[in-house]
């Protein structure tokens, strides 16, 4: 069985990517199971999906903990412990990273036992016309498996994007194919080696006895104030709003509209954004009557100064 996990951020088309891969494998004659992991359906928040493919009906279910291939559509996730991207990687797990850094860089930085490949999907996606990262990467992922033909892949793209219009299908086909062709020398890198537990080798699960505990412990109650401050929603941001003080009229509209309440006024009455919590929804920029809020790619800002990312 192939066990594949796909990671990215909300908005990068990870669910679509898993469906393209699932359909392509199904077209290639495999039994398939694919699913997104919902829960964090917020733009920019880490999300993942998974695909299983086998020669016979698939009885396994749920999240894949021992993958054969892990696809990472956004390399900033590799720094985010809570995204759990590297869970269950072994010496035979292939890792595919969408990054403009080299495979060597990631090998050294992550110290992983298995093969690491890198796709500069940003460039491909941009050339094809703003194709989401997930859809680009899936072309490379399909090639790494070595069992998906160009035709099966293209059919899958057309099927899964049918609702998005002919232009989107064409752009994605181009991007997917480019990634697919670029990985021709890596075809078949992914091995179906990962096996689930065996009766003899399985470690016992470590169950424990629960005791009857007292309240407030035993009820799902929050007694501490403002615990939501501990959720660093700034980590979801892929694009960053920046206030242009030359244009800003200090009307305060953005402050009132921000759903995270992370805009404050300084002594002079200018809005200041707290990037620890700004989730990058860009509502403020859309609503500012003076067009005084610029939008920059988070990645570009962070390479200048790492503030606002994970510390």
């Amino acid at each position, binding site marked *: 069985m192939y066990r594949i996990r796909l990671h990215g951020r909300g908005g990068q088309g990870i669910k679509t990517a898993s469906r393209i891969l699932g359909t392509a494998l199904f077209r290639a004659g495999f039994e398939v199971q694919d699913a997104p992991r919902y829960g964090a359906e917020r733009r920019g928040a880490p999300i993942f999906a998974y695909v299983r493919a086998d020669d016979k009906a698939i009885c*396994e279910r749920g999240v894949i903990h021992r993958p054969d291939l892990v696809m990472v559509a956004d390399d900033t996730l590799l720094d985010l412990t809570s995204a759990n991207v590297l869970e269950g990687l072994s010496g035979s797990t292939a890792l595919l990273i969408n990054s403009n850094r080299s495979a060597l860089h990631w090998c050294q930085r992550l110290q992983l036992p298995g093969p690491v490949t890198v796709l500069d999907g940003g460039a491909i996606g941009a050339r094809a016309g703003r194709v989401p990262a997930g859809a680009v990467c899936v072309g490379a992922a399909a090639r790494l498996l070595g069992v998906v033909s160009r035709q099966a892949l293209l059919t899958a793209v057309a099927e899964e994007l049918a609702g998005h219009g002919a232009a989107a299908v064409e752009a994605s086909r181009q991007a997917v194919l480019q990634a697919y062709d670029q990985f021709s020398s890596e075809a078949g890198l992914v091995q179906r080696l990962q096996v*689930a537990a065996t*009766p003899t080798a*399985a470690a016992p*699960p470590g169950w424990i006895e629960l005791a009857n505990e007292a309240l407030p412990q035993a009820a799902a109650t929050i007694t501490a104030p403002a615990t939501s401050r501990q*959720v*660093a929603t700034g980590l979801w941001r892929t694009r960053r709003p920046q206030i242009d003080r030359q244009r800003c009229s200090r009307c305060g509209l953005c402050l009132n509209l921000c759903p995270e309440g992370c805009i404050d006024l300084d002594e002079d009455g200018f809005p200041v954004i707290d990037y620890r919590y700004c989730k990058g929804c860009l509502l403020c920029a859309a609503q500012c009557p003076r067009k005084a809020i610029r939008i920059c790619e988070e990645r570009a800002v962070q390479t200048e100064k790492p503030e606002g990312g994970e510390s």
Partner: protein
Amino acid sequence: MTRILLTGNAAAAWGARLAAVDYVPAFPITPQTEIIETLAEWIDGGVMDSRLVTLESEHSMLTAAGAAAVTGVRVFTATSSQGLLYGMEMLYNLAGWRAPLVLVNVSRGLSAPITLEPDHNDVLAARDSGFLQIHCATCQEVLDNVLLAYRLAEDSRVRLPVIVNLDGFYLSFTREPVEIPDPVAVADFLPPFADLGQHFRGGQPSSQAVAVLGGGPYSYFRYQVHLAAEQAAAVYADLGRQFERHFGRLYQAVEAYRCDDAELVLVMIGSFATKAKVAVDRLREAGQKVGLVRPLLLRPFPVAELRRLLGQRKGVAVIDQNLSPGRGGILHAELAEALYGLAKGGPLLASFVGGLGGRDIAEEEFLQIVEVLSQAVQRGSAPPPRLLFTADELQQVRRLQDIAHGSREGDDAS
């Protein structure tokens, strides 16, 4: 006949489409909403000739569903979790009205604390309502059993509403290959709705849901629901064989997997049962005589089948994805009662509660369950009930508690 990848939700919608339902009262709730969205799209696009109406609550939705069914049309509706409980009053009513409709429930754990992920406490809360219950393990079973459910509900010997249950996430949002039956074959298997005198017509008024006092009449009518539900076991068996003749897939009240010579047997319902099959295969490869028994029908409870399949085993482990506080696993209690009074005492019964609120059950845990059962059989006494819960999970809870009560800062929670 086409075989395509479908989520459990899409499979349920396909079932309703192929059954050519007339009326779909709807109310959205995660993880069910995709079903009514799909149907709405089809109806809007003209590929399905049906009326979909969104109501203001599940209570109204079920009232509309029941009322429509007893006026003589085929009705489909769907809900989940809190929604099912919000409509609970009407579940009993619809059974009493003998309204032959199909309700798909997408299982999701109940509040509080709130969750989106599945367990079976929602659907089991409807256990005593008079609705029949079919529990599915795959997306294919969802589609097929919506069709079977209409035959069952509308059968003159039964005439009761049916719940078809699928697990949230593990089926609702998971795509698997599903064979979509040929509409012509479906029309042959499932003829148009026959009202059997249950209808409203101008100039021909009838009263539904009348009051009865004194207890005697009430006992009669309520027991009629019970007798019809019991009868549904034989009808489902018959329909399952008919279905196989039409579509090549056999459905029975209970699935027995690798049970022929099994000494130890796992019992569970729903989609996690396919995970149990993986463990059974693994143990079989290692030479252990292990099998799986999975009831599809929960109401009527297939007592005779379960006694036949389990009565001679050495040990049976019931894995409940539900919890009745103060009692334990519901399926375990039902099975213990079903196996009571067997000539040779019956198998040793062990109770495991796991998979609450969508918690996964790892393959290692299935293996360990069999190990615990096997040791209990050797010892000759049942182990204490076991919650599948690990030291790591407790640590995770402790971290949350510390944050909730202010004794610790969170990590990079996202």
